[in-house]
């Protein structure tokens, strides 16, 4: 009964969803891919993941101490560290992993005002920072298990790849991107929980496939198309990084437009660029366009607009 007389200021309708819970869901969803990465590439992959996560959390903690506003418990630093590690080749020097983590949290997130204020995905920004700074280390995918090029690089140079291996993940590449299966399991978990929806990933992948059919040079060849979808960071990017709440548009049409833009940009980078991969650059460019997309797709308030 006493609840009836409770007086409080608005908002009166509250959601039980917390930042903490969302981040925990993303971490759980990334575990299959992380586990497969460690299984696929050996114990060094675990060191890379640990270094990345620990450095990210430490940076967030130290910055929190300095600003006297502790945000370490919202787990967002763990997600950033984990995503960054999944975007790294297994044999990268650990100090580079740490540098990337510090850059992601300190420069891209904290200096702009912390979680919710970063204008681009911290993990991807750090990946691009490392890719530009240490190109030879970041694109060296040789390790004990694999000595060849990544499937996308093989495709780019005109070779053929084993699609089954690509879907399971028995290929070279970054730690988290190889296994489409593990990533899709994690993505389904997030979709079922309602943490993400299909607007961004679906429009991203569909527009990329359309672009690949039109400009990929192989037409409707299903073997080529499925390899392009399963290869590289497309699934990881589409489900786990393009859907980042902070750096995607908030309007429904904006999200679809954002996905289409990412698909086209990824296609341009993959088929016309010098490298074999372009997911991270595409998502970062998309992040920068988010304010513009939101402005264009802003819904008209009831009673406004239309014929006057």
């Amino acid at each position, binding site marked *: 009964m006493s609840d009836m007389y409770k007086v409080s200021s608005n908002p009166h309708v509250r959601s039980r969803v917390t930042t903490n819970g969302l981040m925990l869901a993303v971490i759980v969803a990334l575990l299959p891919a992380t586990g497969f990465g460690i299984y696929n590439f050996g114990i060094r992959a675990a060191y890379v993941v640990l270094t990345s996560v620990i450095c990210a959390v430490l940076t967030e903690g130290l910055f929190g101490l300095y600003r006297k506003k502790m945000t370490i418990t919202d787990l967002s630093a763990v997600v950033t560290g984990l995503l960054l590690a999944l975007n790294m080749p297994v044999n990268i*020097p650990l100090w*580079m992993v740490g540098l990337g983590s510090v850059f992601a949290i300190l420069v891209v997130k904290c200096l702009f005002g912390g979680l919710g204020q970063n204008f681009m995905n911290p993990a991807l920004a750090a990946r691009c*920072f490392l890719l*530009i*700074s*240490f*190109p030879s*280390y970041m694109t060296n995918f040789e390790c004990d298990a694999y000595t060849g090029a990544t499937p996308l690089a093989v495709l780019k140079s005109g070779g053929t790849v084993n699609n089954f291996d690509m879907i399971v993940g028995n290929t070279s590449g970054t730690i988290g991107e190889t296994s489409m299966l593990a990533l899709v399991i994690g993505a389904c978990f997030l979709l079922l929980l309602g943490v993400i929806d299909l607007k961004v990933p679906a429009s991203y992948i569909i527009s990329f496939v359309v672009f690949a059919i039109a400009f990929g040079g192989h037409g409707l060849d299903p073997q080529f198309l499925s390899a392009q979808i399963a290869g590289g960071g497309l699934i990881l990017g589409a489900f786990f990084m393009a859907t980042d709440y902070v750096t995607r548009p908030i309007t429904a049409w904006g999200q679809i437009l954002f996905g289409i833009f990412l698909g086209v940009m990824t296609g341009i980078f993959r088929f016309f660029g010098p490298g074999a991969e372009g997911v991270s650059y595409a998502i970062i460019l998309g992040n920068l366009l988010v304010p513009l997309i939101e402005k264009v797709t802003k819904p008209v308030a009831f009673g406004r607009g239309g014929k006057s």
Partner: protein
Amino acid sequence: MNKKSTMNSAWERLVNGLVKENPTFVLMLGMCPTLAVTTSAMNGLGMGLTTTVVLMLSNLIISLLRNIIPSRVRIPAFIVIIASFVTAVQLLLEAYIPSLNAALGMYIPLIVVNCIILGRAESFAYSNPPIPSLFDGIGMGLGFSFALTCIGAVREVLGAGTIFDYSIMPASYVTINIFVLAPGAFFVLAMLTAFQNFLKATRAKVSEEAAAMVGSGCSEDCMNCSEKGCAKRFYDTQASDKLPDVNAEDFQEKPKTVEVEDMDEKEEV
């Protein structure tokens, strides 16, 4: 903005250009050469000194001619004077330091449109006697050189492991390429600006002269300025709290009128 009192002192003009109104870190002028040529300490220093020479001479000449140049055509007149000196300096560089000329390339002719030079001509040399103008040019130029050398040095150390082409890092050092590319220029400029703001803020806390220091970099845009305790500040969050029944329109009108009064006062002084 107490220019009248500092005008006679050449030393003050020098310090003003180097520290108080450092063109790069405080006024944020001349960003194009700042970001583009500071890939090494040497390039930064070269660009800075070249600009210093032009700035010094153009300030002097514009100040000497300030009573002859009609105010309607002053900008074209400034450009002609500056362009003459830039051409002369470029020919000298080509003759005596061809390596620097090659490294700076297109950015030497672009000194003509460097907004520091035009800015100092417009805001100082055109309304002040020659000697202070000359020292204003030297101070601003040295401030610019100092800033560019700092940015260039940080970028060179991180991006190439050397400073003034002298290797200082251990052989195992892996260069961070991004610092010699364009994004690195933005990172380093932002970090150094933040660092000097941090130094100034700590000093301002101790000193009672905070308001005077704020005034030196003041854009007179008090609406968007976060400096509290500034003597010139008329729009304060606390003040607005006390006047809850004033319309938003009134608040937007207010600065304009005050600004106009302010400028009138200055001209009278």
